[in-house]
Each structure stands twice: as structure tokens, then as C-alpha cells.
């Protein structure tokens, strides 16, 4: 039987009644934690056009979060900024290329990532199922907040224009882009690629590749915990955050994505609240989600919304 088109897939994701109350409580808890930013010049990584800094700030549970911060050497007094969010297994990159395009750029290593794993280190694989039966201690509760606190860091920088903040990432970085754009109204433009952490329950049925396979591994060993797992994941599903997004947003997906099924990308996009949203589905592409072609689209998008200029094709 031929496969149904991905765009017709009916997601099973349901939002808990107290979803927003849960996250408002988390935000209140986080707001009580002083950011205590440290900004340390990194002369080894600094070049003639880009200044590079190692950054640390405090997040939920007093976890110290690392990040890379880059800014153009030659910049205007108030510079637009982009926060770059990492994939599941990748080491957060030094975002020099964003600084070369004229942005201040922060690349966050949420808890458990290299350089942020002294106090919390569930490992890879394992992050996805760490305390997955309890939304109050699930790994991604703090992990999400760590990325949202990156916005606080940027807002505290005197060289950053607080009215011109963007967020971007692919895979897990795409999922984190969704949650950040939803929870931080200061975000003025967002670009999410191949979003992970969106449609968990659907994804584990649609594909059997890591990292989603971690959940199937867990349920195979602990089938009696399925209801608790599903309950927890509903609070962390990007699909359930999406209706809070009001800024301009673009989403790119690969129709042969073997990691984050395209069905979940369509389901996410349909739920995004912003009136200014655009989906770029790339046929013949997997988890790259058409990156080679789409990079120019992202550049034009941020240039228009953050730099205030049109970039030619």
C-alpha cells in the first residue's frame, strides 16, 4: 500500500489542561535565580573580524550553563543578535559565521552538553529519557530553561539591540527554537530546521532511529510506565508550545528525514500561532532538511527582520 503523504498525517499530540500553568510556575522559579553572567575573552578563537568569548550563566537548579558568544569587531552601537541552539548530540558550535554576517551571536550549551555537564550529566544516549516519568524533574525541564536564559544574557549585553533578537537551530536546535520563540516574547524572528522534540509520541511510531529510539528502548524495558511517559512528554512537546509563537517564523523540513519524521514537522507547523509563518518542505532531503539550499533563505529572513534590509537571491 502506498504511504500516505506526510502532510495528511493526524498527530496524536494533546495539550494537558494545566500546560501553561506548569510552565508559568517553572518560569517564576527560574526568574528567582540570578543570572550571574561571566564573559571571558577567548584570544585563541578570536580573529581580526570576530571577537569570541566563553560565557557562563546560572540557570534553574543553580546549574551553570556554558555558551560561546561572538560579536563582529566592526559593529554598530546596538547590534541585532541571534541565539543559536544545538542539535541533540552535536557539540555547540562557535557561531563566528553569524558574527561575520553582522549579528552578535550566542551558541548555548544547555545542561549535560560538553562544558555544561559538571552538575548534570545524564549522558548520550540517556538525556531523552532521564526522569521521563516525572515532568517536575525530567531532563528537558531545566534544559529548556537554559536556552530561554540565553535571551536574558543577550538582553543584558549593552551592545545588543533588545528589539532585534532572533533564534535559530536545526534538529534539537529546531525544537528549542520553537520552545524559545513561544516562551520569550522578546524573540522577533525564528528559524527552525528539522524540528526535534515535536510530536514525540508520533515520532516513536513513525521512525526507529536514534535519538527518538531511546524512548522505545525505555518503554520496551518498562512497558508499565507508558502512561507516565506519555503524560510527561505532553508537557515538553514543541507542538504544544507552538500556538504561543507570535513572531515571524520559517520552518524547513526534509521529506525523507530519517531522524525527525516530516509528519511531525507538518503537525508542528499547523499549530504555530504566528500569522507570519512559512514552511519549506524539501523533497529528496533527509535530516539536513535542504540546508544547502535553505541557508540563503534563512539569511534573507533574518536580514529582513533583524538587519532591516533585503538581501538579493
Amino acid at each position, binding site marked *: 500500500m502506498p504511504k500516505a503523504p506526510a502532510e495528511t498525517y493526524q498527530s496524536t499530540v494533546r495539550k494537558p489542561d494545566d500546560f501553561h500553568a506548569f510552565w508559568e510556575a517553572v518560569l517564576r522559579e527560574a526568574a528567582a535565580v540570578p543570572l550571574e553572567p561571566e564573559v571571558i575573552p577567548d584570544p*585563541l578563537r578570536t580573529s581580526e573580524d570576530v571577537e569570541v568569548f566563553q560565557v557562563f550563566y546560572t540557570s534553574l537548579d543553580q546549574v551553570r550553563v556554558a555558551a560561546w558568544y561572538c560579536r563582529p569587531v566592526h559593529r554598530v552601537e546596538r547590534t541585532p543578535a541571534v541565539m543559536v541552539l544545538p542539535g541533540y548530540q552535536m557539540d555547540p558550535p562557535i557561531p563566528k559565521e553569524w558574527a561575520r554576517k553582522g549579528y552578535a551571536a550566542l551558541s548555548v550549551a544547555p545542561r549535560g552538553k*560538553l562544558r555544561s555537564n559538571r552538575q548534570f550529566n545524564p549522558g548520550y544516549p540517556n538525556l531523552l529519557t532521564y526522569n521521563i516519568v516525572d515532568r517536575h524533574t525530567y531532563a528537558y525541564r531545566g534544559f529548556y530553561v537554559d536556552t530561554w536564559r540565553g535571551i536574558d544574557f543577550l538582553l543584558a549585553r549593552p551592545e545588543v539591540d533588545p528589539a532585534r533578537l532572533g533564534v535559530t537551530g536545526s534538529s534539537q536546535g529546531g525544537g528549542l527554537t520553537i520552545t524559545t520563540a513561544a516562551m520569550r516574547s522578546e524573540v522577533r524572528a525564528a528559524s527552525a530546521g528539522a524540528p526535534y522534540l515535536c510530536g514525540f509520541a508520533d515520532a516513536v511510531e513513525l521512525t*526507529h*532511529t536514534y*535519538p527518538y529510539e531511546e524512548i522505545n528502548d525505555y518503554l520496551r524495558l518498562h512497558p508499565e510506565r507508558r502512561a507516565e511517559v506519555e503524560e510527561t512528554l505532553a508537557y515538553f512537546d514543541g507542538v504544544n508550545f507552538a500556538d504561543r509563537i507570535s513572531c515571524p517564523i520559517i520552518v524547513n523540513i526534509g521529506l*525523507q528525514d*530519517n531522524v525527525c519524521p516530516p509528519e511531525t514537522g507538518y503537525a508542528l507547523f499547523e499549530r504555530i500561532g504566528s500569522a507570519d509563518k512559512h514552511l519549506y518542505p524539501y523533497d529528496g532531503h533527509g535530516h539536513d532538511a535542504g*540546508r*544547502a539550499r535553505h541557508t540563503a533563505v534563512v539569511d534573507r529572513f533574518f536580514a529582513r527582520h533583524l538587519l532591516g534590509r533585503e538581501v538579493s537571491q
Partner: protein
Amino acid sequence: MIEPTPAAVREYWQETLGALAHYPARPEIELLPLRSTTFATLFGVRLTSLGPYRLFGYLSIPTGAGPFPAIYYPPKYQSVLEIIPQGTANLQRSRYVTFALAGRGQRNADTPYAAMFPGLLTEGIDRAASYVFRGIVADSVRGLEFLLTRAEVDPARVVVAGNDLALIAAASTAGATHVVTTPALFYKTAELAPKTQAYPLEEINDYVRTYPARAEAVRRTLAHYDLVSFAPRVAAATLLMAGAPGTLLDGAALQPLAAALRGPVTVYESRQSLYKDGLYAEQWMAAQCDIADVESILPEHWRG
């Protein structure tokens, strides 16, 4: 620059592998029920490498009567160790023995040394004798040696798949019958790094910019690692995964490497699609290993 002579490079590696041979692997193998399925059993493996340094790997054995073809994944250039590469169908483990190794500094092998990314590529690079990749190459060799001790492995179908370390491991010890290699670190590095601003090669640029007096020493160390010098010792059938046309490591750029390999070579140029590139590699490995129904072990979204 005073380049090391081919004899000096040979001696460097003979000494390295000779030193490795002094340390028995002493494997400890532990069942990991969380990642075991009806079609494959997963084990955590600890074993000793040069140093001595204790490494970690994931060994997956298919259910049923072997021997099975095997895929060895030597250390990647990232902190995370995967059981199988992200996006690979878990069902790959039903048909192949797989062994993924964390080199020194990577997760699960990060005590006492935790590597930084970026940073690893230039760790100790001003002296070939203490360059961190001397140990990581030894780790890669040790991993292949370990895999070949397993009775479940069909020694006629052993694929080594990864970046530069796949090719270097296959050149440095016997046993690899096939290689899938995507050069990224050690092909004409000193010459190509200044042509890019992208990591990981940007690490070399950062280092030389910061320590210009060490530039010659860096070139000298890198000369011990150039893939072209390893290639004549690779008799295995090789799939050389090149970058897309026009990129730094495209098929034309890698031509000298392809020509230097002793065994049959297939050069594949990236089509800038992880789907098309990944599918080609999976089908190539399956064909080489006489796995007829590769479709059944592909990710769902790659099947026809």
C-alpha cells in the same frame, strides 16, 4: 620547512603501534538490557589502549547464528559516542555486528582526559610525539583489533566506517575488508585549512594565528597524519565519500587520495542531501557484505 622523511613517518607509526602492543586490551564486557532488543543484544565494552588508557565502546550482536558481517565505527570528531550513527535504522543491528568506539577524551572515555570540541584537533599539535591523535589512532586500531577477536564476526566482511580514522585504522592493522571514509581532518590539512573558516579545520587556523612561531611544528606534525601516506597500505575495497562539487574536499580534490589507495575505490561526491548520501553508503555496504534485502534495514523514510 623540514618535512619528516617517509622513513621517519614510518618509524613514528611503528613505534606507536609497537607501544600499543605492549598493553593487552583486557576487555570487560557488560550486557546493557536497556538497549537490547529481540533482534540484537548490546554490550558496553571497556578495553585498554596506548597510555595506558581505558576506552569504552558499544558492541551490538545480532540475534541468531553467525557469523555476521560487521561494521566498526572508530571515534568520531565529537564528544558524544553513539551506539550506531544518528538516523541509522536500529534494524541495522539485526544484520551486522556493530562496534562503536569512544576514543580517549570522548564521553564514557573521558576520565582522566576530557577532550574539548573544538580543541581536540590541536591538542599537543606542536610535537608529533605528544599529539593527542597519536593516542586516538592507537585507540582506533585497538578497537578494530578487539572487534576481530569476536567469534560472531565474519572476517571476510568487516567494514570500517567513519572519518579519516576509518582509513588510518584500516591502513594500520590487518582485518578490514571494506572502508567507508569521509575525510575531514587529515587530508592536506596544512594546505587546506587556510582556505576555510569552518571548524574543525578552523582550529588549525586559530592555533597558528595565536602561536605563529609554532606554524612549522604544526606542519611537521600534520605530515605524519596525511591520508595519502596511509593510502598505499589500504587494500580493502573503499568508498571514498567526497564533498559536493566545488567544496574543499570534493572528488577532484581527493583524486590523489583515491589514486593512492591500493584496493578498489569508489568515489562518491555528496549530493548535499543526508538522505541521498546516507542511502548510497548503506546500499554500498550491504552490497559489499552480500546483504540482499537492504530495504528492510533502512530507516522508514528512506524506503521506496
